[in-house]
């Protein structure tokens, strides 16, 4: 079971799914767990996550990988899916 509590910065358009919050804390040790926890705590985020998101971890954008570990000290931003271009 996840034991780390990570803070996730959401983009402001998601406030309507989180009761106005743009920073949400969830228990997670990987990006996958973090996304699952976001949906569990804020079910309105499910279509957002399903549509595809990327994650910025300490300034590095992770386009699709969800097996990457996350930790409380990480700066984490949820982003719209970043594509190759």
């Amino acid at each position, binding site marked *: 079971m996840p034991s780390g509590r990570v803070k996730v910065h959401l983009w402001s358009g998601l406030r309507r799914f989180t009761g106005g919050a743009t920073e949400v804390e969830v228990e997670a040790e990987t990006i996958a767990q973090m996304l699952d926890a976001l949906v569990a705590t804020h079910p309105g985020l499910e279509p957002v996550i399903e549509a595809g998101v990327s994650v*910025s971890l300490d300034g590095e954008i*992770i386009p699709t990988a969800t097996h990457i570990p996350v930790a409380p000290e990480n700066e984490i931003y949820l982003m719209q899916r970043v594509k190759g271009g």
Partner: protein
Amino acid sequence: MPKDEIKQTFRLVGTRPDRPDGLDKVTGRARYGADFSAPGMLWASVVRSPHAHARIKKIDASKALALEGVKAVVTRADFPEVPAGEYWDLQENTIAGERALYDGHAVAAVAATSQLIAHDAARLIEVEYEILPHVTDVDEAFKMDAPVIREGAADYSVPEGSPPNVVKVLDFGRGDVEAGFASADLVKEGHYTTEATHQGYIEPHACVGQLGSDGKGEMWVCTQGHWYIRRMCAGVLGIEAANLRVTASEIGGGFGGKTTIFMEPLSLALSRKSGGRPVKLVMSRAEVLRATGPTASASMDVKIGMTKDGKLTAATAVFRMQGGAFTGSPVDAALNCAFACYELPAVHHLGYDILANRPKAAAYRAPGAPMAAFAVENLLDEMWGELGLDPLDARMMNAAKEGTKSSYGPTFKRIGFEETLEAAKAHKNLSVKLGPNQGRGVAAGFWFNYNGDTSVSLAVAEDGTAQVSVGTPDIGGSRASIALMVAETLGIEYEDVRVSVVETGALGVNEPTHGSRATFATGKAAVEAAESAIKDMCRRAAKKWGIDEDAVEWVDGAARPAGPNAGKFPPLSIVEIAAKMSSTGGPIAGHYEGNPPGVGESFGTHVVDVEVDPETGRTEILRYLVVQDAGRAIHPSYVEGQYQGGAVQGIGWALNEEYVYGADGRLQNPVFLDYRIPVASDLPMIDTVIVEVPNPGHPYGVRGVGETGITPPLPAVANAIAAATGIRMHSLPISPSKLLAAMNAKRKG
């Protein structure tokens, strides 16, 4: 802390050896998409809608099928039903279903024994249309009463009551923008528009597809990503991906436009329907322009606040972009890039992805970023100019740097924007005195860069040379760069490494060459593969010497005993180890599969001098400077080529290129005579400066250079024209007629 902590000197990295594909290309030996042929091959031709929006009432192919030599005709009825989503969109774009959604939309395709017969047969296919109301302009498509392209296409992000063609809404930012504007001494707003442009690759789309009734097939195709071709064709045709082997040809330009499918499933469907005979399909230039992905057109509102010293206090952007009749304009990336060059206490972005009766947009070099830069850098230049500030100094004062919270959220790590500004300021072009009707423009640009799924295999041959198999087609010199990095790592010569782009059956999945990723991601993967082979060779040397494998190091292309064993045995070179591979464990190889981490962003600064003819409104580029952070230039000639190519495409976007639609919704200029891309005689040699602030996430410091370079030219040219004429143009392209009209209006007061 020094900016560059990565090794600075290399034996090969940073040199300029001959390109590995040079001889093939100058002798005509290189095989492009249309060069493939196969025994028993048929030719295909596509019937395309002459209407921007029309219901397809009936397709009658009987006359075509009666023509001698015609073997098959396909329509949407020959494709399986697929659920809504990516594959439905791709299928619908490949061949229209109930409605043709844009001028040039494919409605049927025919295969025959010759290209001539196929074209004749296509003309014999009778399609009955019911013409529907259409919309091609982005602002018109945004209206509540606009013709509806597709009901139910909007996603979760679109609030109820939005215009019916809005399919996605983006809303993000941080800080208190109203407080930021209130604290500003100067606040300005501007409205800006850019027209759709095409990637303009010289080689049209071409493929040969073969698909049997057993669902097994092959394809030879001009593409930036043959695993994407495989996946997308399989999804559209309802076949298993692994049963389709796809081989990429040499490529005559892609720029993002060849990262998806357009007509490839048609050749496979025709092949399947004609008994598995290979079917060749080569687009004409008109087909390329009418039916393959241009970029979006944009309508943008930007508001910026700054102090009287030019320090930014707040900014907002509202962007509307149409990406054709399907979801997928690059409005998201445009917003993310819009203010990325600068430190901003407060910023807010709002974006709308809008459907219109135009072809499905494809990626085009830093998708969205050039349009965003045109709006933002244009307004910034106007405001800093009003305050009497030097454009480079003002940018330096506001420049994003390590530790800056980016406009899109995350905190930047090591980046090199400031260094590009410093290098631009020091360049000789800045000291050239300008004459009458001449002006100098400055602009900055940004792109994220990207990693993506990557597989590489490296094998050492019996003579100690190395072959590297990659899955990213070489569109900008990646084979040379990868060979240099592998040779550097292995300690052998550049000429002893051959890099090949191999077919989909030979490696794990690879994303296309997109996102400026090939030299970064495939290069990093190749270095990892080389390291893996080195480890194996050190292990074999250790075994021969009877020492622990950790006590062996790899130096200058040879295994050497290290530590307490140093000097006890003579080094074993890669040639010696390779010669004995069969008796020491068999083949020597290394491979990598993953998403290489460590992407580093790239920033650039451009400076352009122009002269505007006051009588004709024609703008001449006098000199053009590109300064960009490459992280590390593995093969500087290719990096310079990327800088120059990006600048030239951006200049074309700024001055000439545009999709011109008539009132009937048909594209008016689907040939290069009327769709005017810059040619060599239009431009001076583009000056380049490679800044190297190495990316710590790559073994040689690579960031990726393909995309940032197209971002600043649009505003740089507009800013230069403003300096030359006193007229600030808010709409691209700044064609002679448009600029002359503006100058005449100014003269009349």
